[in-house]
């Protein structure tokens, strides 16, 4: 005989589930009272970096991030630009932003002719699921942009 699940039992379980989830969030230690950045904050940073140029999204800049990051405390991020690294076709800077972190700034890489290739990799913190944005500035003033969503399972809340 199939045991019937009492509606009250179901209810108690879902309540416990919710309480459990809330406790987990508290235990991770999200910074209380510190608002996260918004995509608009990140775009304002992009505009400032671009200095009036319209960022191109044609794929010259590649942004490598995992689709899913289990641990937001250490998320690998790589950037590369298809560039000769000399004359006008030279990458001067690449800025990385995370539009849902308490502060969208992550890192800015500066390249030189000795770089040979415009590639760099590091590890960053992501407080929650969000978009990672990379913008590259060329010697001729052109600006290239790439964006990638990263799903974060456990947030790296600044720690």
């Amino acid at each position: 005989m199939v045991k019937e699940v009492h509606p009250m039992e179901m209810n108690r379980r879902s309540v416990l589930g919710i309480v459990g989830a809330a406790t987990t969030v508290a235990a991770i230690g999200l910074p209380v009272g510190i608002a996260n950045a918004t995509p608009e904050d990140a775009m304002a940073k992009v505009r400032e970096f671009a200095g009036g140029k319209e960022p191109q999204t044609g794929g010259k800049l590649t942004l490598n991030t995992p689709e899913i990051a289990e641990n937001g405390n250490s998320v690998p991020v790589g950037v590369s630009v298809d560039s000769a690294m000399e004359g006008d076709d030279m990458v001067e800077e690449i800025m990385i932003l995370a539009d849902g972190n308490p502060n969208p700034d992550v890192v800015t890489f500066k390249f030189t002719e000795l770089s040979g290739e415009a590639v760099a990799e590091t590890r960053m913190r992501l407080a929650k699921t969000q978009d990672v944005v990379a913008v590259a500035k060329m010697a001729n003033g052109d600006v290239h942009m790439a964006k990638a969503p990263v799903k974060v399972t456990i947030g790296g809340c600044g720690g």
Partner: protein
Amino acid sequence: MASKPRVKLPKSASAGEVITVKTLISHEMESGQRKDKNGEVIPRQIINKFTVTFNEKPVFEADIEPAISSNPYFEFSVKVPESGTFHFKWEDDDGSVYETEEAIEVA
């Protein structure tokens, strides 16, 4: 506090070859976003700048924000024109500077 930085790059290369350099330094990278058990904000203390030169010419630089993970890791490329010495420098919020050097032989 940071401990001795680690750098990985080939011992030799041919002239004009593009090599990959990997660097790591042990550092808490305290973001300034966390609170201790009394609810006090733990002050920010991070490595805020990483600079690489080759034979005293600039190669690569990173302006670092608190969103970089603890034990900051950087990987980048260098086109090596000649034999010489790489100089790596990490700058801490507290004013400390951590440095190391690595030589490469170009045949």
